């Protein structure tokens, strides 16, 4: 952590906050542990234990936490790395209050809140949410068993990362918050190329300017922008059409 102090501007509240969180979470517990990467305070790796009495019992799940530069004003993103049957791996998921927009993230929540919420949310039904998987209980149990041998290229054997120390008890306020938090995937890291037939018609003309040397991510972004523009174009066209035809009938 001493290095971190030299590398980052500790006057910056976000940095100060993350250093505090790193101290708060320095000691591993039996339920969860998390720490920043050696060289990046804005990326952490975490490990959580599958909740007791669920299909995930006995499982050890490892993943990444990506902190936006505006943290804690904007929420962290979580990426699970260990196959678990509840969330897709290598896919960003973010947390929000169930049924509300992600803007309901609160700066007074922390990485601990996110981890506790993740543990609490694992056994909830996937219900087709983006980033969610609906594996059968049997499949999840198999994955839980396998998960203990999973090893992270950076952190090593993940089962060894948790300790036998009990975590700080969850307060009443925390519990009521945890009951409300939901996790949802987002599409930015979609591995599949987007395929919306209606919008594809518009793609070529917008993509004309794309240079062949553009990186994959840039291209993806452009495709997304193109789709957006296309969809809006169609929408306006439809609206205009509807308006036009209704105007005609009035005449």
């Amino acid at each position, binding site marked *: 952590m001493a290095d971190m102090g030299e590398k980052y501007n500790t006057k910056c*509240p976000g940095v100060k906050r993350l250093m505090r969180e790193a101290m708060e979470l320095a000691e591993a517990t039996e339920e969860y542990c998390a720490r920043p990467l050696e060289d990046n305070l804005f990326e952490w790796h975490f490990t959580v234990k599958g909740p007791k009495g669920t299909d995930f019992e006995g499982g050890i799940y490892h993943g990444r936490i990506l902190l936006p530069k505006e943290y804690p004003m904007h929420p962290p993103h979580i990426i699970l790395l260990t196959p678990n049957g509840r969330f897709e791996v290598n896919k960003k998921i*973010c947390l929000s209050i169930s049924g509300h927009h992600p803007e309901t993230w609160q700066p*007074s929540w922390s990485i601990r809140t996110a981890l506790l919420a993740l543990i609490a949310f694992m056994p909830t039904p996937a219900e087709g949410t983006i980033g969610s998987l609906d594996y059968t209980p049997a499949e999840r149990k198999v994955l839980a068993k396998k998960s203990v041998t999973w090893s992270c290229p950076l952190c090593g054997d993940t089962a060894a990362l948790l300790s036998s120390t009990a975590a700080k008890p969850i307060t009443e306020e925390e519990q*009521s918050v945890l009951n409300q938090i939901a996790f949802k995937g987002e599409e930015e890291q979609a591995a599949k190329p987007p395929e919306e037939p209606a919008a594809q018609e518009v793609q070529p003309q917008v993509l004309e300017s794309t240079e062949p040397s553009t990186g994959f*991510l840039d291209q*993806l972004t452009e495709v997304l922008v193109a789709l957006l523009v296309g969809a809006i174009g169609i929408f306006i066209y439809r609206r205009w059409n509807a308006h036009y035809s209704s105007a005609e009938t009035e005449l």
Partner: protein
Amino acid sequence: MADDASSSSGCTGNLVDNSINQDELIMKQQREIEKEISESIPLVGELEAISSLEKEYNEDPVYLLKVKDLASKYKYMRRTRPDGNCFFRAFSYAYLEYLLTDKAEYEKFFEIAKNSKEILLALGFSQFTVEDFYETFMEVVQRVGEQAGGAADGMEPIRAELHDKFNKQGYSDYIVVYLRLVTSGQLQTQHDFYQNFIEGPRTVTEFCRQEVEPMYKESDHIHIIALSNALNVGVRVEYMDRGEGSQVIAHVFPEGAKPLVQLLYRPGHYDILYA
């Protein structure tokens, strides 16, 4: 845009999902445009003459009459960024600025601010995050305290420092977060009273979690009443909208208090006013 990992709108769903209707796409685009415009405006602007509003409403007779009325009561204004935090930012900036001129009021406020943390902890807010916001907030408050009540001509450096801190996203947002927490604390400790202000089936706690504590959520009367009560600071809000009449309508919160902070409200937004 879509590749910005930190964008708060990044989680709203699949851009290319067929099931998302086009209205939603348009709204998303609209939000992004608004966000871009908003970010080009400083968090808290420089002092401007009230007459700058006239230019804004050049071809709008209803507003022009009201600007005229406003100009008869106030000389200057300071605009704030319309990012949903404007009430909290405008309030705290205007009040800290006022405290520079009134040491006695500062001492009174300092005690209230100091005790505010305990109220939040007693409500069960996480200690280390509350402390994090509290410390940054108090750091700025104490800087003001060091100079409060000093000679007016020696105030320039501290005023510049305050302005600078309020325009540094880190500090500025931390102050906003802390005031949001204080507001939430007030609502929750006096929930019987405030429940009457909340429409629909939401409890005060739910309301706080959805409308008060998250950043960028706009403030309503209930926020202003709660914060002005919690800090015991009178706020006068001049309401300027398309309503009837040629005058702006003023409200003082809490009722009957001596206003130390004056704000201009136009639908959806607060700026600071100076007599």
